[in-house]
């Protein structure tokens, strides 16, 4: 009977995903549990963890990596079941919700992180992580902007000089030189280009521009934000912590009308083509020859640099800045990640030491030299630029110039992020699919504004 009971316990625990090893590592005060979602960054942070352990005898960092979708549901479950990590990689779209739920520790209240200085990081990054109470909830680790990735072979076939991509201009009326290029890069199944007579938009071999979906889940970050931003649009009345939204603004609605119109003209894949809810990204679309170029984020540089075609040969990928818009300037959303400490951490001071270490020059230089993301510290950013130039022969200044030229605008940070996502994503999908007009976003905007009237 005792044996049977022991067996049942084991089976039950195994069924619940409980593993003895995990508990053993988190129970000891010396081990700090750290979570991240980007597998590409894990080797770099493991190096940081090793140096941290060497500098802090008795402390050890245990890193766990989970894919983006699983990451957030596992984290939520962890907060409820008291199995959340001490420190985790946090996102601007998510952290406000966690502040509301009171699961993050203000870093100012912990000795090691109390003296983090905004001025050590790229301008504007650190401020994004301060809550409405003025307290700091994340230590900046990296930043990202948007640029255009393109397949050099497709440009050559079309007889386009890559240098001409640096001076593209777009407008919501006729799309400008940007749309002309996109049309020219589009080829239908009869081999006729999008700007030639007899072009059939219903049967496309390769689209000029890739699609990353409707953008309803992240304010069009890699979809339309670069266009809306260069038309002078901002998502909220103030940022961070806006409470009124601008989905009803003519600038945005005209931009979206033009942008999603590219899909109807055949220049950009439709919602159905990219796979609906399980959409493939710009990288896969360029790799599989569905699109010739597309917007994507700087966190994708290493993925793009490794792309191969069906025969295993490496693709030659180039980079160009986002086009200049009606405001006369380019624009890119400026987003950043940070490390947050949970209220569930049993040894918050140890956790804060690790956060401080990751936000410091030593670790950020390691991350910069790994070339996966742009670290938040300017000196470490330069190391990442150098790595891409020397090791990948890739000029990443289309990403970094946006920061240098101050053409970035910040990712909208608001409360009620989960509700905003749930209300906005289906409606934005409807506009992309074409089952609802762009003007339907005005009603969505009222719903978003109401969220904040109720909250106050």
């Amino acid at each position, binding site marked *: 009977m005792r044996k049977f009971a022991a067996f049942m316990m084991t089976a039950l625990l195994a069924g619940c995903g409980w593993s003895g090893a995990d508990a053993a590592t988190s129970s000891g005060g010396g081990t700090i549990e750290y979570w991240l979602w980007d597998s590409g960054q894990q080797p770099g942070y493991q190096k940081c963890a090793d140096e941290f352990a060497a500098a802090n005898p008795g402390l050890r960092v245990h890193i766990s990596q989970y894919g983006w979708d699983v990451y957030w549901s596992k984290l939520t479950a962890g907060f409820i079941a008291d199995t959340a990590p001490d420190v985790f990689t946090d996102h601007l779209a998510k952290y406000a919700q966690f502040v509301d739920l009171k699961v993050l520790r203000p870093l100012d209240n912990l000795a090691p992180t109390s003296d983090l200085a905004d001025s050590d990081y790229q301008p504007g990054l650190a401020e994004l992580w301060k809550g409405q109470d003025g307290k700091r909830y994340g230590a900046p680790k990296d930043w990202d902007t948007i640029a255009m990735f393109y397949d050099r072979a497709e440009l050559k076939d079309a007889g386009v000089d890559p240098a001409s991509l640096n001076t593209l201009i777009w407008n919501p009326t006729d799309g400008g030189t940007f749309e002309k290029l996109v049309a020219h890069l589009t080829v239908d199944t009869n081999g006729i280009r999008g700007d030639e007579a007899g072009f059939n938009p219903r049967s496309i071999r390769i689209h000029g521009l890739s699609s990353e979906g409707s953008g309803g889940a992240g304010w069009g970050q890699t979809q339309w934000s670069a266009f809306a931003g260069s038309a002078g649009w901002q998502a909220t009345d103030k940022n961070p912590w806006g409470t009124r939204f601008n989905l009803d603004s003519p600038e945005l609605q005209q931009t979206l009308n033009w942008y999603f119109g590219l899909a109807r003209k055949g220049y950009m894949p439709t919602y159905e*083509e990219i*796979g609906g809810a399980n959409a493939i990204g710009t990288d896969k679309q360029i790799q599989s020859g569905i699109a010739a170029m597309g917007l994507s984020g700087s966190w994708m540089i290493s993925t793009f640099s490794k792309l191969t075609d069906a025969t295993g040969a490496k693709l030659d990928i180039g980079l160009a800045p986002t086009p200049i818009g009606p405001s006369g300037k380019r624009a890119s959303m400026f987003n950043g990640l940070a490390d947050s400490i949970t209220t569930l951490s049993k040894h918050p001071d140890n956790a804060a030491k690790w956060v401080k270490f990751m936000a410091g020059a030593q670790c950020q230089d390691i991350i910069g030299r790994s070339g996966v993301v742009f670290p938040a510290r300017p000196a470490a950013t330069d190391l990442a630029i150098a790595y891409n130039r020397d090791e990948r022969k890739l000029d990443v200044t289309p990403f970094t110039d946006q920061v240098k030229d101050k053409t970035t605008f910040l990712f909208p940070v608001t409360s009620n992020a*989960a509700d905003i996502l749930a209300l906005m994503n289906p409606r934005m999908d409807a506009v992309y699919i074409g089952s*609802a007009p762009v003007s339907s976003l005005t009603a969505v905007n009222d719903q978003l504004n109401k969220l904040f009237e109720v909250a106050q």
Partner: protein
Amino acid sequence: MAISTAPPRPRRRDDTRLAIAFIAPALIGFLVFMVWPTLRGIYLSFTKFNLLTPPEFNGLDNYVRMVQDPVFWNSLKVTVYYVFVNIVIQTVFALVIAVMMQRLTKRTWLRGVILTPYLVSNVVAAMVFLWILDYQLGIGNKVIEMIGLDRIAFLSDSAWVIPTIALINVWRHVGYTALLIFAGLQTIPETMYEAGRMDGASEITMMRRITIPLLRPILALVLIITVVGSFQVFDTVAITTRGGPVDSSRVLQYYIYDMAFGRFQFGYASAMSVALLIILVIVTFVQYRLTRAESSDLS
């Protein structure tokens, strides 16, 4: 030689302790995993609860919001549509398969093969169909193109998603349903069919006049089980469409899940769960009465 003269011990009449020992595992499971969560869910439906801070009682607010929530009504409509497509096709197919299992083959392995999709987990089945039906690369669409038809966005076109998801689940559950009906068929005496054949009835007439009427109580049971299961469709939607495009596959269970664990509105999600519970009670009751599941024509 000592012979035991003691009378045989009388059998213990009281089986209560043994009975409790046998019932306990199921009863404990039922109380802990069914009754307690149901009661707590009903309580939480009258509160504002974000999972991490203590629930606050807010009366009927969640229910008032539910009645006014267009997404809730839409998800109810989508769910009923799904259940209709799923159950009609599944039951018809299961009935045909069960009759064939009984009349055409006696081979155990062939009968076993019919059950195999049921042994595949819902998530795996959904993943496999997601690949097969992929618009760009799916083998399903390659076949459709080879026949000379246009590719179909099975899981990203609002008109196709619910029928597609319903059929994926028919594929998985039809064998199990057929097995239940097959068990029912075994209870129909062979003499009935012999009599039918003597009178010159065709297979189809015998199906209509003998099989279906005598199978009614079993069919009623099967329908009640499958309809209740069908209303709770979740995993296939979560894997393939996550409610999209727009709201066209946002079934009630998925909306509830997203409300609770995506939007941290556990109170409102509980209220919708209570609504689903009430709907299922009513549907089951109506089915039970309509099909006279408690009586058989076989006596």
